[in-house]
């Protein structure tokens, strides 16, 4: 499938044609005001010029490989999103966060994949009520990646998101130390 066919559908107002409606999370968000999308970092879509993708399509087969790969990642994130929703319904927010952080960040430079994954992680982060309880059952291997997503949350400037991220950030720094912050800042390859 050519990449251009689903570029920037997030900005569509007509959700019936939008591929992203498959996301249970998205359905709710998209029907709300667009400022919510901005608050969770989706603004990044409009920053990226469409022409960039056009150029890559013209580059030949390599672009299509990338497109297939992107497609696969999007499908994987969709599946993950559904699982998270069901975990949240069962009142297992920590399990949901683990699930969200699993396989994150998607190993791609594609901003749509990153944003889609961020929205899933954001959903799980916001569902956390008991921050102390979170660190009882969250394994240390998730610390570095969680820290990266907390900084992405703080970058949105959205009040409830920042409040929640700061709450978790305090506890996470206590647990994982300054080394964790340094790793999340220093890693310029696996960007979230």
């Amino acid at each position, binding site marked *: 499938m050519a990449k251009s066919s689903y570029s920037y559908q997030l900005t569509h107002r007509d959700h019936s044609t939008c591929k992203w409606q498959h996301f249970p999370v998205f359905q709710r968000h998209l029907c709300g005001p667009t400022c919510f999308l901005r608050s969770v970092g989706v603004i990044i879509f409009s920053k990226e010029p469409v022409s960039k993708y056009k150029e890559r399509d013209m580059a030949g087969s390599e672009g299509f490989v990338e497109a297939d790969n992107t497609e696969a990642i999007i499908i994987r994130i969709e599946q993950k999103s559904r699982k998270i929703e069901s975990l949240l319904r069962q009142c297992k927010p920590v399990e949901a966060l683990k699930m969200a952080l699993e396989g994150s960040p998607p190993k791609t430079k594609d901003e749509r994949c990153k944003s889609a994954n961020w929205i899933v992680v954001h959903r799980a982060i916001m569902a956390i009520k008991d921050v102390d309880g979170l660190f009882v059952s969250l394994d240390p291997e998730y610390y570095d990646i969680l820290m990266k997503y907390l900084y992405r949350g703080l970058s949105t400037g959205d009040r409830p998101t920042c409040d929640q991220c700061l709450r978790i950030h305090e506890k996470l720094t206590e*647990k994982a130390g300054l*080394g964790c912050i*340094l*790793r999340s800042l*220093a890693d*310029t390859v696996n960007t979230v």
Partner: protein
Amino acid sequence: MASIAAHKFAQCITCHAWSPDQTMVAFCPNNNEVHIYRLVEDKWEKVHVLQKHDQIISGIDWSARSNKIVTVSHDRNSYVWNQEEAEWVPTLVILRLNRAALCVQWSPKENKFAVGSGAKTVCICYYEQENNWWVSKLIRKRHNSSVTSVAWHPNNILLATTSTDGKCRVFSTFIKGVDSRDSGTSLASDMKFGEQIVQLDLCFSWAFGVKWSPSGNTLAYVGHNSMIYFVDDVGPSPSAQDVAFRDLPLRDVLFVSERMVIGVGFDCHPMVFTADERGIWCFSRFLDERKRAPSSSKYGSQFSEAFGKLYGQSKQGVRNDAIDPTKPGGGVHENCITCIVPLRKAGDGTVTRFSTSGLDGKVVIWDLESRADLSL
């Protein structure tokens, strides 16, 4: 306590080195001079000042057998200092660099030394008898950024480097007429000068402080992302481990044995990393007193087991961290530690004593034998 002596020599020390008999220490007090002090009746006495460089001296190494000092500086030059009677006589080594020299180390046989530089090159310098001259051969076009550290393999041929491009590389430094073919291992014997044997691409940020284990089987280096990397079987198929720790990044490392590494850096407290019988490395403990109690004891007990694997907060580690009442609130060093140097006894391969220096201007001597829990 593991530190047996500490002395503040200057406001700041960029690097230091010990004389072969370890009675004198040479260091750069963050300027263009090398000061040499000798311990006389429990007091440090300044015996020499080596003045020849124009800018800050970034590296000093004192050869154990030939008693020569090599210094490199931001002025892009290097001097080899020979003691003739009471005086230290410098010989200029033209490195042919267009950026600062950053680090220097004598090779194990002391017939070569390696200089890392900001010019993305490594200089291998050797003495030419007929010309009475130190010659510098350059390894070019391999590093994409400044070379922050160099380390010699015990076979005198292989050289490991770290760079601010985040990579650790291993080169052959075979020089015709200086090295003989049989001196190297099978790995190094067929290599030409400057040939890259392996490039380790484990770190995503600046890399510092590379060292070989005493046998040369393991390589350790640190990244500026609070990680330390251990590489076994350096060659075509190396195996690597990375260990994350919870504190500020390291600047330099030292193997005290095949299974124990000391790391020093921005955290001001030397860290001990150990390998278990399977060869799995992990953070073991801080060498000096613990600077702070574990902040959340509430979940500490349930958590420490799993947590210790990655972040070194194991129960054992906490128990061993006896707080020294004489130094409230901290360790011996008060600022970033930039340099760690072994203090070897003559003819002894194992290291039980070593010294550290840093931006606080102190040189601290540590002894592992005084600690039963760290016996090798």
